[in-house]
């Protein structure tokens, strides 16, 4: 009798397992969307060409590993610090840890910012201490006079060595650029700055989660 009962429980469990995720895929409809003027949420920015970017930012790197950090517990502090809502690139934060023979030599973050003529995708190399190691523009659709400025080595080099505490203002700690390129250049500067701020919060969370991690890096 006990055996029969056990078999019955097994069959019922199997039936429940099959029934719980029962889907009616064919009748699935898109939910109605509110008519608002808000911008569509930008999808997560992909890292389009990891290999050449890795070599350009960290020439001695041997590989990279992806680490994800959920920042939901510090959202309100981060919102205050950034002065805006967090975007899909920032929470969860995908950190590409760059390694050289097993040792972490830096991190890479990828994000998309709103420039004057379209989205600009930025790849930022960050040193273990939290300062900018290098900046690359992986995608942009600005007219030539603006593109020449924002993609120039001189403009990108101006970010190197800056930490999250720097103001990242054009004509202040960053070089002044022609007026035509100013809005897009400032967007990129803000984007890089935001990445540093978000990463600094993430590092604290990760270190608290695993105190041995900082040492390992």
């Amino acid at each position: 009798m006990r055996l029969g009962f056990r078999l019955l429980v097994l069959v019922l469990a199997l039936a429940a397992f099959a029934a719980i995720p029962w889907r009616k895929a064919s009748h699935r409809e898109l939910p109605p969307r509110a008519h608002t003027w808000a911008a569509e949420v930008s999808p997560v920015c992909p890292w389009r060409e990891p290999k050449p970017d890795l070599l350009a930012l960290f020439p001695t790197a041997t590989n990279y590993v992806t680490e994800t950090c959920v920042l939901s517990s510090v959202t309100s502090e981060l919102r205050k610090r950034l002065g805006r809502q967090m975007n899909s690139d920032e929470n969860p934060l995908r950190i590409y840890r760059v390694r050289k023979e097993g040792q972490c030599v830096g991190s890479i973050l990828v994000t998309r910012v709103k420039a004057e003529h379209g989205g600009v995708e930025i790849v930022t190399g960050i040193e273990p201490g939290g300062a900018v190691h290098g900046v690359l523009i992986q995608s942009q659709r600005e007219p030539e006079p603006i593109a020449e400025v924002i993609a120039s080595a001189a403009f990108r080099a101006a970010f190197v060595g800056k930490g999250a505490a720097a103001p990242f203002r054009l004509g202040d700690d960053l070089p002044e650029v022609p007026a035509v390129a100013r809005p897009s250049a400032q967007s990129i500067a803000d984007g890089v700055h935001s990445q540093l701020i978000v990463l600094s919060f993430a590092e604290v969370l990760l270190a608290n989660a695993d105190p041995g991690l900082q040492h390992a890096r």
Partner: protein
Amino acid sequence: MLVLMARNLWRHPLRNGLTLAGIAVAMGVMVCIVSFGDGYRQALRGELDRAGVQMMLVPLGCPYDAAVRVLKNQTLENSLPASALVAVRRDPAVAVAAPLLMAALPRQNDRRTDLWVGLDDTALQLKPWWQVRAGQAWFNHAHDVILGSDAAALEMRVPGDKLYSPEIKQEFRVASVLNRSGTSDDSVFFVSLATAQQMFAQSNRLTAIAVRLKDPTLQREAATRLQRIPGAQVVTMTEMMGTFLNLLGAVRTLVLAVASIAMMVSALTVLNTLLAAVLERANEFAMMRAIGASRAQVFGLLLGESMALTCCGGVAGAGLALVAGSPIEALAKDWVPLTPGGSLLSISPSTVLPCFLLILGVGALAAVYPAWRAARLPPALVTKLG
């Protein structure tokens, strides 16, 4: 009787577990195939219905390839003369004829492609999902662009923003952003037809003309007339759907054949398991007969064991189909032509139940011979076997 069945099945958990796994896999495959076929048919019909057109005029070449490319907002190598539009609109059966000019601009450095579609306001009558989420309803200026929702999200644009195309070195103003439609239009940059013709140096040329008829029953006559337009060919949506469903049907038959083999193998496994059980338990069956069990009762015992095994396997198979359905769907989508958007897997009681009954039938059939052998064991055997 039930307890006896359960105890017998429990005696060899590994053997019976493997048999059950075989049945589950066969059931899972069968459910996935049936569900995928049903889902594909429904999704394709939905996609073509949403397209709002009954036929399409495309340049000479493979008409189905051309029609698929147009439905997916991809470019064609050939184009139609604009005069074809005049001829189509003159046809008495045509209610709406919407000209389209499409171009894909690869952005080599960014590993992306921008899809540009030029259209005039007649296209709105064929796109019932066209809903402006923000901004003006239509193009006011030649440099206005309307963005699909994904394109707007990717470029972070809202109405009034500028948008630049580095490939053609032209600046636009975002006139509006569309609501998400779940179609390929979501990732498109729409401009007016005249702007598109100027942008891509295709003056007086069109990629396709989408046609809606006043009366769908006039389709054949209208197609015959429109077919006479020089440099153009007509593809009706019914033909297109039929062609793709035939193609899918052929693939489905092939896969069903494979699933049938899996089903046969599982039936043989059940047969083998039960035969082994009969040989092992000959003494027990003989004893049952000796103490008064009828042949029907012995037969029923084996049949019941088989049914319990296949029943559990069937339930597990249905669960397997639900879990493994999505990855299988993702794989299948790569082979199938014109995969409509959304999920193609339509797992519902109406697809699972026939498969379940089939597997039960197979289980019952596989049990007949072993049960018959068990029932025929003479009661006197118990004295021989001790």
